[in-house]
């Protein structure tokens, strides 16, 4: 029987011995000997000794000299601790910050979704003629499903939240309602029990649910007997038929997935004009391109528009890879941060190169001696490379530690809704990135100085003049690198400056309401509040109970609140306006039922007419309050008071409401979005099941949380309270992306500034030392102090100016990348650029002035003697 040597040892040999005939002989000898001895230990010992000590035929990789260089490098670093610390820290900063950002970018943007062949998964939805995504209507999905040929399967699903009762206290659970094709499409099987199937889509089918692993553990203690049990979720009882594998996650963490069957009977779901939140996911057939699939979907959309013009004209089907759709919003932020961190890493490298060149220049003598004693150029070069790689390794190691810390900080400030944030960790890919970054820094940027310094011949040993040719050359290189550093610093400063302006703008923005001392929360009414009267009464009682609490000065309820936006966006018609010929011209407004005190509690401005009062009851004449944007859009130059409008399609029956007031615009869908058309109506006339409770407090709003929650529980213990936040927190969360960008860019820009300025100081200062003789001569010949200062400053300023010009050009080129992130300020804002340039030049001047002043203090006689 033939024995094979340990595969790993074999691989190492193949990998690290140069592949040539000589080494084939060595490996052959080893193999032959191994088969005779049959000792794996022997083979390992021989292989390792071959690799590390190079005992073999000539020209083998020998690590002996490398080891020697390494020991020498360590000794020389110990002799220059401040230089070493500076280089290592600079590298650590560069590597650490870039690795931290890379970890996030990798987890959120780059790593494939955790589904089999996830690159074939496509997100599918419908969009109206203005391009706004409106979700897929159920009948359209049925047609799409049978007509399409590009996908193996398509499925739709929607976010649903349920109130779960019957298992301890009522609680809100997050669910996703899915069609039977959903799990087969994404390619996931339950770990326990069965999947949801096509049969579960039928209107009469028994409602079934699959639990997430986490929910199964938390709620049922991982009891395998859970299958077949019933869950009371709102209006239906769902039978548990399966449990998903641990770690499974679709878009976000869900407690459970339910079948769509219980809802398909609903007439409003079967209305083709209703888009009720379903979004599609499809798995492309192998070999079908995205382009072809998108074309086919559009073709089907056109067919449907012809067949059902009333509901489908102007409607299009849109598609994009699931992964890119998922991270759409964060892409810009992350790419900007990644770009910024790339710039920082580059600066760290440039700085290190600069330091190494300076050191190389001052070591010319040592290198010259070695060259004179017969050191070959390649050997010297190797020595210098080993030094820079050692520095890089140390910098990389500290950088990785730094990255771990930074990552924790970044995750703390990252917008909470960033998808896949929980997948972020310092994983293998991040470590690989860190090591690569460090090694590339060490080798590429160690190479310049090494090439520079190794040109040393024996000559400088003999003639040690101050202006050796090599030194002048290294100066030119250093000056060039410094210009690059100033330019890069300016780019980061400009980015940070723009984010400062953005954030200042956002925080001082007129939101149209008063956010201070406001506590907000969502309350879901449980089963039993099925008819309008009961819901209206419950809402009234909730508001009254909260209002009575000591510390609360005002309380209100509404379907939604500013900044958060509303999920009830509907077409509407105005009685005095003609019905637009095209469906997609029909106006859409956010519909918001509110209690009478809503506007007052939020501190909103009444522009005309009146707001709601307790007299606006279910039975009283239907009324509405519109926002300024709606009034201006629909009735420009006309008084909206007394006009009538109706929610829903114009040809359908509905309640005409008389407009009784106009209310000031508020920032409704976040600070950066334009205000939509809004129609407010009395809660008593349109009571929803989900409520937002607002409480204005005289005390810090957070402190009222517990008493308000218990007041709500006092109305009904089955009411579930969620998303308890102060309005300040809501505002703050809405600008979390910008804040994170500012924080990161700000920190990076500060580091960049320090790097550039210390680099400038070092270079100018070094120049003064080298030119002490010349300056002495000049002063002896009658140069004034200010001439000397001007001489030195000129040198520093010329570099700064060149850097600023390059930097402004670079920042202008890159500023478009900030488009999605800046708000209320032009990415090319002259004021920001001027401020940044002024700041940078001022700091640079100060950095040059210190050495300049020192230059004027050189006594001419001393300078001349120094020769």
């Amino acid at each position, binding site marked *: 029987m033939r024995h094979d040597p340990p595969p790993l040892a074999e691989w190492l040999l193949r990998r690290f011995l140069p592949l040539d*005939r000589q080494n*084939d*002989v*060595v*490996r*052959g*000898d080893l*193999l*032959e*000997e191994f*088969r*005779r001895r049959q000792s794996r230990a022997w083979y390992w010992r*021989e292989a390792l*000794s071959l690799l590390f*000590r190079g*005992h*073999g*035929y*000539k020209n083998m990789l020998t690590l002996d000299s490398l080891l020697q260089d390494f020991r020498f490098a360590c000794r020389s670093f110990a002799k220059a601790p401040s230089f070493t610390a500076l280089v290592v820290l600079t590298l650590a900063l560069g590597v650490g910050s870039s690795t931290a950002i890379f970890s996030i970018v990798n987890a959120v943007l780059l790593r494939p979704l955790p589904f089999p062949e996830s690159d074939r998964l496509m997100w599918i939805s419908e969009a109206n003629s203005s391009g706004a995504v409106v979700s897929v209507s159920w009948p359209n999905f049925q047609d799409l499903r049978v007509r399409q040929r590009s996908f193996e399967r398509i499925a739709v699903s929607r976010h649903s939240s349920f109130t779960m009762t019957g298992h301890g206290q009522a609680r809100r659970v997050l669910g996703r309602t899915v069609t039977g094709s959903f799990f087969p499409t994404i390619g996931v099987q339950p770990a326990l029990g069965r999947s949801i199937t096509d049969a579960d889509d039928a209107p009469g089918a028994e409602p079934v649910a699959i639990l997430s692993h986490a929910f199964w553990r938390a709620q049922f203690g991982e009891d395998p007997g859970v299958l077949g049990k019933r869950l009371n979720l709102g209006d239906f009882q769902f039978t548990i038929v399966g449990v998903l594998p641990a770690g499974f996650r679709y878009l976000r963490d869900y407690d459970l997935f339910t079948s769509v069957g219980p809802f398909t009977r609903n007439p409003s779901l079967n209305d083709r004009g209703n888009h009720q939140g379903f979004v599609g996911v499809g798995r492309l057939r192998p070999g079908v391109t995205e382009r072809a699939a998108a074309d086919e979907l559009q073709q089907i959309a056109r067919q449907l528009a012809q067949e059902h013009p009333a509901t489908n004209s102007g409607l299009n089907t849109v598609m994009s890879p699931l992964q890119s759709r998922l991270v759409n919003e964060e892409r810009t932020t992350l790419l900007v941060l990644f770009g910024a961190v790339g710039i920082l890493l580059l600066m760290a490298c440039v700085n290190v190169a600069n330091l190494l060149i300076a050191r190389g220049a001052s070591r010319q003598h040592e290198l010259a001696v070695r060259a004179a004693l017969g050191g070959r150029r390649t050997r010297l070069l190797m020595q210098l490379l080993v030094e820079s790689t050692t520095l890089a390794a140390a910098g990389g190691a500290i950088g990785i530690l730094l990255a771990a810390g930074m990552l924790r900080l970044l995750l703390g400030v990252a917008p909470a809704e960033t998808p896949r944030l929980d997948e972020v960790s310092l994983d293998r890919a991040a470590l690989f990135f860190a090591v690569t970054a460090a090694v590339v820094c060490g080798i590429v940027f160690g190479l310049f100085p090494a090439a520079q310094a190794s040109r040393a011949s024996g000559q400088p040993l003999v003639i040690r003049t101050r202006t050796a040719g090599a030194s002048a050359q290294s100066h030119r290189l250093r000056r060039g690198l410094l210009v690059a550093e100033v330019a890069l610093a300016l780019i980061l400063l400009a980015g940070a400056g723009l984010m400062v302006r953005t954030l200042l703008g956002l925080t001082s923005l007129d939101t149209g309401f008063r956010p201070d001392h406001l506590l907000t929360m969502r309350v879901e009414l449980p089963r039993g509040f099925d008819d309008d009267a009961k819901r209206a009464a419950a809402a009234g009682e909730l508001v009254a109970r909260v209002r009575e609490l000591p510390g609360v000065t005002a309380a209100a309820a509404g379907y939604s609140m500013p900044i958060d936006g509303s999920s009830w966006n509907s077409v509407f018609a105005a009685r005095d306006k003609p019905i637009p010929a095209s469906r997609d011209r029909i106006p859409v407004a956010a519909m918001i039922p509110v209690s009478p005190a809503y506007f007052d509690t939020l501190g909103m401005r009444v522009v005309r007419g009146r707001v709601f009062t307790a007299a606006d009851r279910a039975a009283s004449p239907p009324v509405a309050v519109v926002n300024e944007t709606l009034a201006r859009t629909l009735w420009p130059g006309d008084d909206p008071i007394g006009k009538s409008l109706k929610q829903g399609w114009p040809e359908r029956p509905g309640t005409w409401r008389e407009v009784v007031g106009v209310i000031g615009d508020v920032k409704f869908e976040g600070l950066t979005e334009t205000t939509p058309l809004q129609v407010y109506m009395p809660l008593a006339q349109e009571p929803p099941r989900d409520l937002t409770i607002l409480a204005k407090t005289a005390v810090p709003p957070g402190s009222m949380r517990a008493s308000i929650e218990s007041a709500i529980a006092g109305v009904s213990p089955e009411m579930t309270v969620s998303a308890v936040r102060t309005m300040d927190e809501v505002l703050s969360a809405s600008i979390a992306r910008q804040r994170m960008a500012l924080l990161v860019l700000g920190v990076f820009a500060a580091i960049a500034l320090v790097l550039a300025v210390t680099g400038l100081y070092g270079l100018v200062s070094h120049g003064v030392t080298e030119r002490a003789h010349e300056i002495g001569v000049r002063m002896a010949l009658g140069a004034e102090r200010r001439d000397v200062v001007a001489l030195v400053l000129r040198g520093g300023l010329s570099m700064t100016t060149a850097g600023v010009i390059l930097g402004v050009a670079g920042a202008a080129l890159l500023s478009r990348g900030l488009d999605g992130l800046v708000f209320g300020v032009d990415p090319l804002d002259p004021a920001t650029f001027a401020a940044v340039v002024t700041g940078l030049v001022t700091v640079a001047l100060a950095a040059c002035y210190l050495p300049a002043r020192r230059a004027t203090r050189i006594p001419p006689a001393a300078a001349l003697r120094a020769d």
Partner: protein
Amino acid sequence: MTSPPYLGEFEQQVLLVVVRLKDAAFGPEIGRELEARAGRRVSRGALYTTFDRLEDKGLLRWHTVPGTEARDGLPRRLYAVTPVGLASLRAARDVVRRLWAGLDARLNDPGRG
């Protein structure tokens, strides 16, 4: 004419084994033969370094021949002593002979009589 290069003891042993093995003078065989005849166990590293040194001195040469199945067909080196190497060996032997001459009786080695 210059005298052939001086040989160290181990170098001499290696060259002698190569001469002895003739058409079977491959690396592993040389190691084994040294162990068997000279009773010294040599590390592979030391042996190969010596091959390199002898080659540098022009005392040893080699050519590669196709490998056997025992080494997965990887090629092997067949060593041979160069004429200079043979001259060195002869010179070394002559030195030893001259040094030994007339000492047999005094060293009283029964084996050599």
